[in-house]
């Protein structure tokens, strides 16, 4: 190949030559916008609408070669050979099934693959304006569910579940492998710059994953980052800037309506705690009160920005790809933001013809400012806490806080229920723990910084053709710091009256924590590839050691000891508490794999892995995971040849294997001594008490999965189809077995008892359509997963779980039933008259305007036995449709994401309903649909104010469960590639301008902020629960990519 020559030095002086030509497809149609470059130079041109191009080759270039490339077509190199008019026919690159896909410990041709693997092109990930690669995976691969944890919280990684979760007692996260390195957790994956990703392979069935043994039960996500290719060094600068906005506001009452509502309440004697205590100003002079839109006070239009500079290139001997990126996302919620800095340096070098090395170094820094946006209004839940302290939830408060309260009062303080004593008789009208949301987001400080260095090197020796011996060593060093600070001026449950002029020093909270983790891997593989006649063999042997150590330290100010608000860290206290915890685990693994095919027609693969892990109890130190798969390419048979023009490819494949889930925690098999101090006469005395029940049998969760698949291609792979059916059964599922209380030291212990089944179908379809000059690529996928609880360790159900506080028994796990079902009561309507009261049984206090609850068992009593299934948190199916259009220099891509057949419990309703007696606000929908004695015959969704019996405050019913299905225009990108002819003058190689809309439209019947929400993240037991999580966002960006 003459083009590989470096800059030629020629003594011969020749004249520049001008070459023109035309590029057509195989039907002879002109192809516009084709890039034509003189190989080894920056000289290039684009074809016009008639497919013609013209460029000048300087005399310094010897043996010039034109590189002709166009999206969707196979690139061609055409030697000029002295010609000045060159016509080129490009052939469509419809070789989808011929592509090589990344699998565990290697690559394999898609044609001979016998397992279920979906490969996602990095381009589909990189074009999305999201903070984490995890978010970008939504709707791109069948069987991959991406559940955002907190709506649009900047930098919050989603939970990814492949083919349904397998574990109720621990995480169902897949294993992430980056450039061959198995990561400890998903957080490390989500620190990768999405634009550095070349491709992602999702390994789904046991045959593809079992080689990762005890960590493979939930599938494997293999990330390959971009690596250098030999050739001239190419620089690219890409950048986008945009604006984010909450995708919708909820319609709560404005001041005047709010006051009407409060008057209604007062009239209906609904203020048990403060009878008749409507503030006089509500009646006398409502116009003097502010009309605050609290949502406007805490949400903003926020900037999102990304800048990246990449250089790649090299020689045949050494190739590199270096990138640096800065991503910035301010949160639409005040006080939240995410900034991420990434560097990546990938180097590959051939030391000799048989010896190759590779180095990857990728430092990254993520800085996230978090605000509580999850759970109850006064006490956020779980991950939304600041340090160890629950803080008020601003997203919830913005809906609940009275519009008649000012944001600030005259002295500069925040307007709060405490400084608004406006009830009758000078009593408080508002509950003092419904805080000012603006005060929370302004003052609450909760910063996470994640610093990570990932480094991996390998040395590969090929002593014989087909044989490769590779040793790889690498490590990740992670430092996660959290800095939490709640100033004395922020009101919270610990200091309800705190304000700017009334700081409460005793409530100052300051905590700094640091988690340092080091993980290292030494992995050795030997692969041998051999073709003997029609027989092709591939062999893999591996041995690896991986060890993880983490140390978590934290310092906090002892409560009540801070005497100044000046220093924002624990040093502000003269008395501090330290914490120190460790974690460690180690894996020692070996295994092997055989792949075999005969004439690429009959395919076989088998693998075996043995894992030893420190996590397993001493009675079960080692685990063995076998797998096997078979494939038959019917289309290679002689009898098929007549069909081949229509259906060029048909492959049947089947696989079976066992995998494990080792996410069982470290040293969980031990029972321990826990500190239990006492004070004798005011002197602290240190003591211990036993905790837990030792379980030396503790082991990995076992999964057995079978997969039946079909890969098909039509009309020369113009249309491709992949269909998979799988059945995965989990046994020995880690569950907490409840112990009798009389045991004393534990009420439960972890053991392997449960069984769970996941079954599903996955379909992926792809096609490319050429409509004249328009090229249209469509990739669609749809998948459905069905779960069934097979065993809960002898009991038929586990203790039911509440959804939000007060709605008990909402989620039940029952043998024979799927996961995530919602249980509650069915509401038939409201009691509108005496006839209704006589006709229907009631629970608790009887009265007009109460809900009529369906007496399911007809026993005339409304009680717990009338609770029925009223919703399902796990969707029926997920689908995605990704399309790209190219027309001349324009390109357009459109990604749709769909979730169908999933319900959401709207937990805010409980707060609206129960707090209303304390002067909080409510949605207009709720107000307009509340039963009123003024119109007793009107059927309403909600019962009367302060209803008795089963009401939205006490019970979950079908009225609080909404259809959470949605179809979302996830990404729409329009791009324009400036013709190379125009760029020549400014010495640029390429320039593309584009505009992107992320989450542009969502079609749903769900009335909350975002149907994608789930405050329990990827929980399998309590999915589909919304109580004021971070609102969904819509993002508009414009960007450019410059090559030079």
């Amino acid at each position: 190949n003459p083009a590989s020559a470096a800059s030629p030095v020629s003594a011969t002086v020749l004249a520049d030559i001008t070459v023109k030509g035309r590029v057509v497809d195989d039907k002879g149609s002109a192809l516009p916008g084709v890039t034509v470059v003189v190989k080894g130079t920056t000289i290039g041109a684009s074809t016009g609408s008639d497919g013609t191009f013209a460029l000048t080759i300087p005399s310094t270039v010897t043996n010039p070669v034109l590189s002709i490339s166009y999206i969707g077509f196979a690139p061609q190199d055409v030697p000029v050979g002295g010609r000045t008019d060159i016509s080129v026919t490009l052939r469509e690159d419809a070789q989808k099934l011929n592509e090589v896909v990344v699998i565990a410990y290697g690559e394999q041709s898609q044609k001979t693959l016998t397992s279920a693997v979906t490969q996602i092109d990095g381009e589909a990930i990189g074009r999305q304006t999201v903070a984490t690669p995890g978010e970008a995976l939504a709707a791109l691969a069948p069987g991959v569910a991406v559940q955002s944890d907190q709506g649009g919280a900047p930098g919050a990684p989603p939970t990814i579940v492949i083919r349904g979760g397998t574990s109720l007692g621990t995480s169902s996260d897949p294993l992430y492998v980056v450039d061959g390195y198995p990561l400890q957790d998903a957080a490390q994956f989500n620190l990768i710059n999405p634009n550095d990703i070349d491709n992602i392979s999702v390994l789904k069935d046991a045959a593809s994953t079992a080689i990762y043994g005890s960590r493979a039960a939930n599938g494997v996500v293999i990330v390959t980052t971009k690596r250098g290719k030999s050739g001239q060094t190419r620089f690219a600068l890409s950048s986008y800037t945009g604006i984010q906005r909450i995708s919708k506001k909820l319609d709560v009452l404005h001041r005047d309506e709010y006051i009407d509502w409060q008057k209604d309440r007062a009239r209906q004697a609904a203020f048990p705690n403060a009878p008749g205590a409507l503030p006089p100003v509500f009646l006398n002079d409502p116009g003097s009160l502010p009309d605050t839109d609290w949502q406007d006070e805490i949400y903003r239009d926020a900037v999102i920005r990304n800048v990246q500079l990449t250089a790649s290139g090299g020689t045949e001997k050494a190739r590199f790809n270096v990138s640096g990126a800065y991503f910035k996302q301010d949160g639409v919620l005040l006080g939240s933001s995410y900034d991420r800095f990434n560097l990546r340096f990938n180097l590959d070098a051939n030391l000799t013809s048989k010896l190759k090395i590779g180095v990857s170094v990728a430092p990254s820094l993520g800085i996230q400012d978090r605000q509580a946006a999850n759970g109850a209004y006064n006490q956020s839940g779980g991950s939304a806490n600041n340090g160890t302290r629950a803080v008020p939830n601003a997203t919830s408060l913005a809906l609940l806080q009275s519009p008649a309260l000012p944001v600030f009062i005259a002295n500069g303080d925040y307007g709060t229920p405490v400084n608004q004593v406006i009830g009758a008789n000078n009593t408080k009208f508002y509950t003092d723990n419904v805080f000012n949301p603006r005060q929370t987001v302004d003052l609450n400080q909760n910063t996470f910084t994640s610093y990570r260095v990932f480094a991996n090197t390998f040395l590969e020796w090929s002593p014989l053709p087909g044989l490769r011996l590779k040793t790889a060593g690498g490590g990740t060093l992670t430092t996660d710091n959290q800095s939490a600070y709640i100033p004395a001026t922020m009101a919270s449950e610990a200091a309800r009256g705190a304000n700017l002029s009334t700081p409460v020093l005793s409530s100052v909270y300051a905590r700094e924590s640091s988690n340092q983790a080091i993980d290292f891997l030494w992995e050795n593989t030997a692969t041998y590839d051999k073709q003997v006649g029609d027989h092709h063999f591939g062999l893999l042997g591996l041995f690896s050691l991986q060890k993880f150590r983490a140390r978590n330290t934290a310092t906090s100010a002892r409560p009540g000891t801070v005497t100044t608000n000046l220093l924002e860290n624990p040093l502000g206290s003269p008395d501090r508490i330290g914490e120190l915890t460790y974690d460690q685990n180690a894996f020692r693994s070996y295994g092997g794999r055989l792949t075999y095919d005969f004439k690429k027609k009959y395919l076989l693969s088998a693998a075996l892995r043995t894992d030893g892990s420190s996590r397993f109890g001493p009675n079960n130190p080692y685990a063995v995971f076998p797998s096997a798969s078979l494939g038959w390419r019917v289309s290679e048979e002689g009898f098929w040849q007549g069909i081949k023009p229509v259906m060029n490819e048909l492959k049947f494949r089947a696989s079976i294997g066992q995998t494990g889930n080792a996410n069982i925690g470290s040293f969980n098999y031990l029972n321990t001594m826990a500190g239990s101090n006492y004070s004798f006469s005011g002197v602290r005395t240190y003591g211990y008490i036993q905790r837990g029940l030792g379980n030396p049998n503790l082991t990995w969760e076992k999964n057995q999965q079978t997969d039946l698949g079909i890969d098909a291609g039509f009309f020369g792979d113009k249309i491709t189809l992949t269909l998979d059916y799988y059945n995965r059964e989990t046994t020995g599922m880690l569950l907490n077995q409840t112990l009798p209380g009389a045991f004393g030291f534990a009420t439960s212990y972890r053991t392997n008892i449960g069984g769970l089944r996941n079954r599903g179908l996955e379909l992926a379809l792809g096609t490319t359509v050429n409509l004249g000059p328009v090229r249209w690529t469509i990739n669609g996928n749809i998948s459905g997963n069905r779960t069934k609880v097979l065993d809960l360790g002898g009991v038929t159900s586990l203790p039911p779980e509440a959804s939000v506080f007060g709605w008990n028994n909402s989620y039940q796990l029952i043998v024979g039933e799927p996961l995530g079902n919602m249980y509650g009561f069915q509401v038939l309507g409201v009691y509108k008259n005496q006839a209704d009261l006589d006709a229907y049984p009631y629970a608790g206090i009887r009265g007009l305007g109460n809900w009529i609850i369906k007496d399911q068992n007809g026993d005339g009593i409304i009680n717990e036995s009338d609770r029925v299934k009223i919703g399902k948190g796990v969707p029926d199916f997920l689908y995605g449709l990704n399309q790209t259009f190219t027309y001349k220099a324009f390109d357009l891509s459109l990604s749709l994401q769909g979730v169908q057949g999933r319900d959401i419990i709207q937990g805010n309703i409980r707060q609206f309903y129960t707090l209303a007696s304390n002067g909080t606000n409510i949605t207009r929908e709720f107000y307009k649909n509340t039963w009123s004695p003024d119109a007793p015959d009107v059927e309403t969704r909600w019962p009367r104010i302060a209803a008795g019996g089963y009401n939205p405050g006490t019970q979950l019913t079908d009225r609080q469960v909404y259809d959470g299905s949605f179809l979302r225009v996830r990404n729409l990108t329009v791009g324009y590639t400036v013709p190379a002819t125009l760029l020549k003058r400014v010495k640029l190689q390429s320039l593309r301008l584009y505009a992107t809309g992320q989450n542009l439209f969502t079609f749903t019947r769900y009335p909350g902020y975002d149907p994608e929400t789930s405050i329990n993240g990827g929980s399998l037991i309590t999915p589909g629960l919304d109580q004021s999580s971070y609102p969904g966002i819509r993002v508009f960006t414009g960007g450019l990519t410059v090559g030079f």
Partner: protein
Amino acid sequence: YGCKDFVNLTPQDIIPVSGFYKTEADLQAALTGTYGSMRNVYNGYFQFTELPSDNTRSINSSEVTYGPFDKLTWLVNNNNISGAWNQHYTVIAGANVTLGHADDVSYANPVNKTQLVGQAKFLRALMYFNLVRFFGDVPLVLTELKSQAEALDLVRTPAAQVYAQIEKDLADAEASLPLSYTGANVGRATSGAAKALLGKVYLQEKKWPEAEAKLAEVVALTQYQLLPDVNNVFGVGKDNNAEIIFACQYFSSGNGEGNSFAYNFAPANANVTTVVAGSTNLGTKDLNDAFEAGDQRKAAFLVASGTGNATDYYAKKFVYNVLAANEGDNDWPVLRLADVVLMYAEALNNNGKTALAIPQINRVRTRAGLAAKPLTLTTADTQLAIEQERRVELCFEGHRWHDLIRWGKATSTMLAFKTKYATLDAANGTMAPSVTKELFPIPQVEVLLNSKLTQNPGY
């Protein structure tokens, strides 16, 4: 190479049980840990011993937490009941393990072992006394349970047998414990505490002669005194005073090892303290009205806030301006001399020694600034005088409910209370007193786990 060891890791931050119980210090630490686990028991004790009675109420009655105890509407699946069951058995398990390993180590001084064993037995007896009063028959566990199977094999031991074990443990404790401790050991169980608890156990069993004899021994001990001023018995800085025989010790050191009741009982929305907390245990109007005119204890034990029917009566005995939820510094008195004196009077009166009983009542009355009862009272009137005195003297301390049960008056008192106060607070109309409520249900989760555990009648 040492590949095999690669996955044999030693935990850095946990102490496996297998390495413990090797030295005397380990055993002492295990005993301290057992005392430590008792803190939970007395933080929540008021729910089961005060709220069901006519003495106190909870402002949280509409919510799931305390309302059922106030209104006697608890169900078999009540979490607080199963929580209390578990907390008591944690202390028992700690005591059992301490006793089980007591012979495994050598002691610097033989008396150390005697006292270690005595304290563990005292704690075990105290917990079983609570359990048998709460639940009736309960599984009697006296050794460490080492497997799930053992725990699932338990059955309910008849109450009489549980009482017999309590008496035996207390007799052993009485014999092996010192009369008092000095310095940083003050607060450990003493022989006086064992006597007083044994007397209380006998009284609850209505073993009047045994109760009289044992309580007489306590009354005769000189180190216990009724303080001249009742205001000095309770409050921060007054722990372990001469009137206290045994208390659950709490200490606020910013480590969450203080009590939670001081914070929980604090006002939810009044201005008694600057703390805004739970109001989980408030005196009722009935308790307030029960104090005789001139009774100094009314001002010492109650603090009224609000007006008219909306008045709340806070438990001044326990409430102070505590800043954090688990940082209350004051102790929970389990046994104190005023209780013993009144129990002694009750035992005497039931043994036909009314004339000897009345002076004991008067010891308590006169301290409160009230006139002495005449020595001519009948036995029945003396019983009523004892009931009145116990109610006001020991209010909020966790005696009322089981006193009412012992006197056979729990259900009748609460039915009368419901009728009388239904108009004051409509929520009282939902009260459901009945004889079945005199025992709590065996927690539903226990019955579901182990079908050999029968449920109490009526649940």
